[in-house]
C-alpha cells in the first residue's frame, strides 16, 4: 500500500511534473504532438495496474471546464490553418482540440500519480523537495474536509430553503449569519479533530511516513520516461507517420 513495488513516490512525482511541463508547453497549434504524448498515461496506467479505462473515465470530469475555456476559439479565430478534402480547418479548431487534449492528459497524469502513490506519499515527496510540510499538511486536511463542510453547508441551505422562498442568493445580513454559523461549526470541528489527533500522539507536525527510497526500478522508471517524454515533446512523430502513409 505504501507506494508500489514498481515505482517509488519520488520517481513517480518527478515523471509527472516533467510530463505536465511537457504537455502544457506544447505550442497551441500542434495538437498532434499531444496525442503522441498520450503514450504516458496509457502505458503508466496499465503498468501500475490501475487500467487506462478507469483513468480515462475519471479524467472526463475535466471536460466541461476545458471545453468552456476553449469553446470560443473556433468562433473567434477563423484564420485558415489548412484545407483537407475541401473542408477548411481553422486555427481556432486546432487550438480547441489542443486545449481539450491538454486538459485531459494533464489530469490523467495527476490521477495516475495519486492513485498509484497515494496523496500522502505525494506530499511527503514534496516535503523532501523542500516544500514546507505545513503547506502539504494544509492541503491534505483541506482536501479531506471540503466534502464534509460543503455537505454541512448544503444541509443548512436545504433547511433554510424549506422555510424560505427559495432564493439562490441571500441578503447580506442573512448571508453573514449563514456563513458565520458555518464558520463557527467548522472551528468547533477543528477543535475536536485536534483532540482526536492529540489522543493519538500528535505533537504539532503531521507524520508523513518515512520510507521513500530511490530503488533501481524507480531510477529506471524515471530515466526511461523522462527521455521518452522529452523525445515525444520535441520530435514530431507525425512526420514519420506522414512519410509512412505516403509510401503506402
Amino acid at each position: 500500500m505504501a507506494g508500489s513495488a514498481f515505482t517509488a513516490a519520488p520517481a513517480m512525482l518527478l515523471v509527472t511534473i516533467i510530463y505536465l511541463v511537457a504537455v502544457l508547453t506544447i505550442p497551441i497549434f500542434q495538437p498532434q504532438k499531444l496525442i503522441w504524448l498520450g503514450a504516458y498515461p496509457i502505458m503508466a496506467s496499465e503498468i501500475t495496474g490501475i487500467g487506462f479505462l478507469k483513468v480515462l473515465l475519471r479524467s472526463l470530469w475535466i471536460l466541461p471546464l476545458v471545453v468552456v475555456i476553449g469553446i470560443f476559439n473556433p468562433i473567434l479565430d477563423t484564420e485558415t490553418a489548412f484545407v483537407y478534402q475541401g473542408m477548411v480547418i481553422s486555427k481556432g479548431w486546432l487550438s480547441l482540440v489542443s486545449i481539450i487534449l491538454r486538459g485531459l492528459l494533464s489530469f490523467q497524469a495527476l490521477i495516475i500519480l495519486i492513485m498509484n502513490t497515494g496523496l500522502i506519499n505525494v506530499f511527503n515527496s514534496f516535503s523532501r523537495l523542500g516544500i514546507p510540510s505545513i503547506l502539504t499538511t494544509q492541503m491534505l486536511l483541506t482536501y479531506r474536509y471540503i466534502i464534509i463542510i460543503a455537505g454541512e453547508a448544503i444541509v443548512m441551505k436545504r433547511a433554510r430553503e424549506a422555510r424560505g422562498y427559495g432564493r439562490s442568493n441571500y441578503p447580506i445580513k442573512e448571508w453573514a449569519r449563514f456563513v458565520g454559523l458555518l464558520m463557527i461549526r467548522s472551528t468547533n470541528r477543528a477543535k475536536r479533530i485536534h483532540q482526536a489527533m492529540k489522543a493519538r500522539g500528535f505533537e504539532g507536525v503531521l507524520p508523513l511516513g518515512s520510507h521513500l527510497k530511490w530503488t533501481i526500478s524507480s531510477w529506471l522508471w524515471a530515466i526511461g520516461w523522462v527521455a521518452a517524454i522529452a523525445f515525444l515533446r520535441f520530435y514530431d512523430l507525425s512526420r514519420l507517420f506522414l512519410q509512412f502513409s505516403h509510401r503506402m
Partner: protein
Amino acid sequence: MHMADALVSPPVALTAGVAAIALISIASKKVKEYGREDIVPLMGVMGAFVFAAQMINFAIPGTGSSGHIIGGILLSAILGPWAAFITLSSVLIIQCLIFADGGLLALGCNLINMAAVSCLLAYPLVFRPIAGSKMTRTRLIAASIVASVFSLEVGAVLVTLETELSGVTALSTATFLGMMTAIHLAIGLCEGIATAAILCFVDSYQPTLLYSSPSSERRGPKSGNKNFKKIIIGFGIAALIMATGFTWLASENPDGLEWSIEKITGNPELEEAVAPPTALMPDYDSTLAGIFGGLIVMSLLWGICAILFRNRKRKYFDS
C-alpha cells in the same frame, strides 16, 4: 480575479512562482513559531470552509446579480496573516490542480495577487492600523471594507502589470488599467461588506475566535510590531525578486520557453520541430496525419498494454 493561463507568459509565470514560493517558505516558518497549538487542524478546516463559503452567494442590492467572498481578510482576522496566507494559497492551489480553476501557469500570479496581497499586505498595513488595539464594532467594519478595497485594487494593478508584461493583450495599458480598477472597486466594496458582516456575527457569538476582537481580550500584541516588520521584509524580498524578474523579461520574446531552449541548445533540428507563434503556418499537412495516425497508434498501444499487463491487479489508492 482568477487569471487564466492564456494571459500569462512562461517567464512572468516563473517569476511570480518564485516569489510565491519564497513567501510560502517564510510563512511556514512563521506559523511554526507563532502559531497556536491547534493551528494545523484549524488551518485545514478553515481552508475547507473557504471552499464552502465561496459556494454561497450573497445578493448585491441594486444590481440583479450575486457575488461570493474570497476571504483573505476574513481568514487573516481569524488565523493571523501568515497562517491565513498559507490557507488561502492552499485553496488556490487545490482549485488549480483539482478543479482546473485558473491555470497552472497562472498559479504563481494568482497566489500573489489574491493571497499575498490580502493576507500579507492589506491585513497588516490597512486592517490592523484601522482596527487598532482597542477594536470597536465601527472600527471592525471600517477596517474590513477599506482593507478589502485596498487588496482588490492592488490585485487589479498587479493583474494589469502581469498581462502587459506577458504581451498578450491588445488593449492599451491605460484602458485596461482603468477598467480593472473600476471593476475591482465594486468587487472590493462587496468583499469588504461581506467580511465585515461575518466578523461582526462571529464577534457576537464567539469572540475568542478572532485573532483579536472587540468583545474579548486576546493574546494581544504578540502579533505586534515584531511580526509587522518581518512581514514587510518578507514582502520586500518578494517584490525585489519580481522586479528583477520583470525587468529581465521586459525585452524578451513573449513565448520565452521555446526561445530560451533554442538559444541554449543551438540545435537546428529543434528549431524545425518548434513552432514560433508568430511565424506563418508551419507545415500543417503533418498535423492531420499526426492526429489520425496518433489516435490509431495510441489505441493499438492501449490494447497491447492492456494484454501485456493484464495480471497486474495491484492495490492502489482509490479516492
